[in-house]
């Protein structure tokens, strides 16, 4: 009876359906997809460009809904996620599954009909990758889960690019690689100071499985690879001096902050100033870097 009264006879509220799409994650997806679209050579009609971004956002929302449909048991035991519609009992799982599948199909069809079928297939693959390969298959079985999850989050700029060009060249692959190598340091920095929650949920997050010391060293290792990948478009002549200067400056700070994390010894979350600093800067880093990709292309053109 309690469940029925919470979800009112199985009818979820519009607000909860919206929350199921993880709007805050979606804002990053919209931004990176838009940057990929604007950085691509060639032109796209504003209406078609808008539709492409809309389809990518709906696809990301669909992935998030399918993720929460599968993970309601994990979400229920973690403080950060226990208020989500499913673990809080405001929606039944079937609704989330139907909503997720419906939104996936609609987003892919919209992309195919309005933009092109290559980017539609790409979008379909990214939803499959996040919902099945990451959420269902690898998240609970390997401490490298976040690396795999990062790949799912790295698709939007490449899909945005493909919406304009209809193909994928080296530059969108590098944009993909930047988010791919950015995700582990970004997420593990967070996981270091919210460690206890993941262990409670039984998710093999790196600090739980390999320990803090190894995680901190891996953060630094991934940061070095990230710096190399970030500077690559400039060195290879795929981007100009504006991007080059931004990439070098931002990556130098990123590596400096992750070096402080690598040297940190503390096990108390309240003392983890270095980890918190890196986490905050990592968000700024990605926004600034992608803005630089677009600014570089706009000014150079």
């Amino acid at each position: 009876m309690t469940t029925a009264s919470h979800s009112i006879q199985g009818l979820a509220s519009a607000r909860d359906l919206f929350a199921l799409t993880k709007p805050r994650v979606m804002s990053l997806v919209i931004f990176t997809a838009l940057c990929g679209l604007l950085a691509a050579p060639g032109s796209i009609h504003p209406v078609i460009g808008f539709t492409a971004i809309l389809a990518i956002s709906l696809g990301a929302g669909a992935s998030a809904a399918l993720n929460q449909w599968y993970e309601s048991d994990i979400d229920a035991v973690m403080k950060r996620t226990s208020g989500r519609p499913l673990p809080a009992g405001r929606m039944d799982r079937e609704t989330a599954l139907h909503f997720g599948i419906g939104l996936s199909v609609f987003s892919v069809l919209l992309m195919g009909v309005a933009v092109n079928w290559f980017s539609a297939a790409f979008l379909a693959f990214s939803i499959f990758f996040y919902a099945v390969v990451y959420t269902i298959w690898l998240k609970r079985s390997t401490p490298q889960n976040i690396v795999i999850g990062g790949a799912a989050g790295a698709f939007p700029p490449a899909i945005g690019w493909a919406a304009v060009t209809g193909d994928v060249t080296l530059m969108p692959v590098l944009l993909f690689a930047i988010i791919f190598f950015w995700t582990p340091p970004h997420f593990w920095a967070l996981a270091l100071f919210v460690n206890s929650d993941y262990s409670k949920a039984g998710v093999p997050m790196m600090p739980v499985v390999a320990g803090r010391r190894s995680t901190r060293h891996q953060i630094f290792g991934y940061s070095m690879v990230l710096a190399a990948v970030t500077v690559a478009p400039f060195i290879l002549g795929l981007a100009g001096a504006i991007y080059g200067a931004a990439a070098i400056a931002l990556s130098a700070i990123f590596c400096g902050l992750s070096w402080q994390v690598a040297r940190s010894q503390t096990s108390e979350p309240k003392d983890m100033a270095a980890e918190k600093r890196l986490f905050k800067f990592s968000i700024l880093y990605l926004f600034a870097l992608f803005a630089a990709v677009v600014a570089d292309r706009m000014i150079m053109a």
Partner: protein
Amino acid sequence: MSEIDSNKAPMSREEQKAFQARQKQRAIIMAGLLLFMVVLFYLITIVKIGAGS
């Protein structure tokens, strides 16, 4: 069939009111989204026809 399925049991007055309010809210949002899609598909069609000619 002696047990009462709480999901199918008749709703109390307050429950029914809340249920109908939620139905109405969802219907209004759905109508807005459909209208948005109609306009979007109209614009896409115009752009596609323009590009084809």
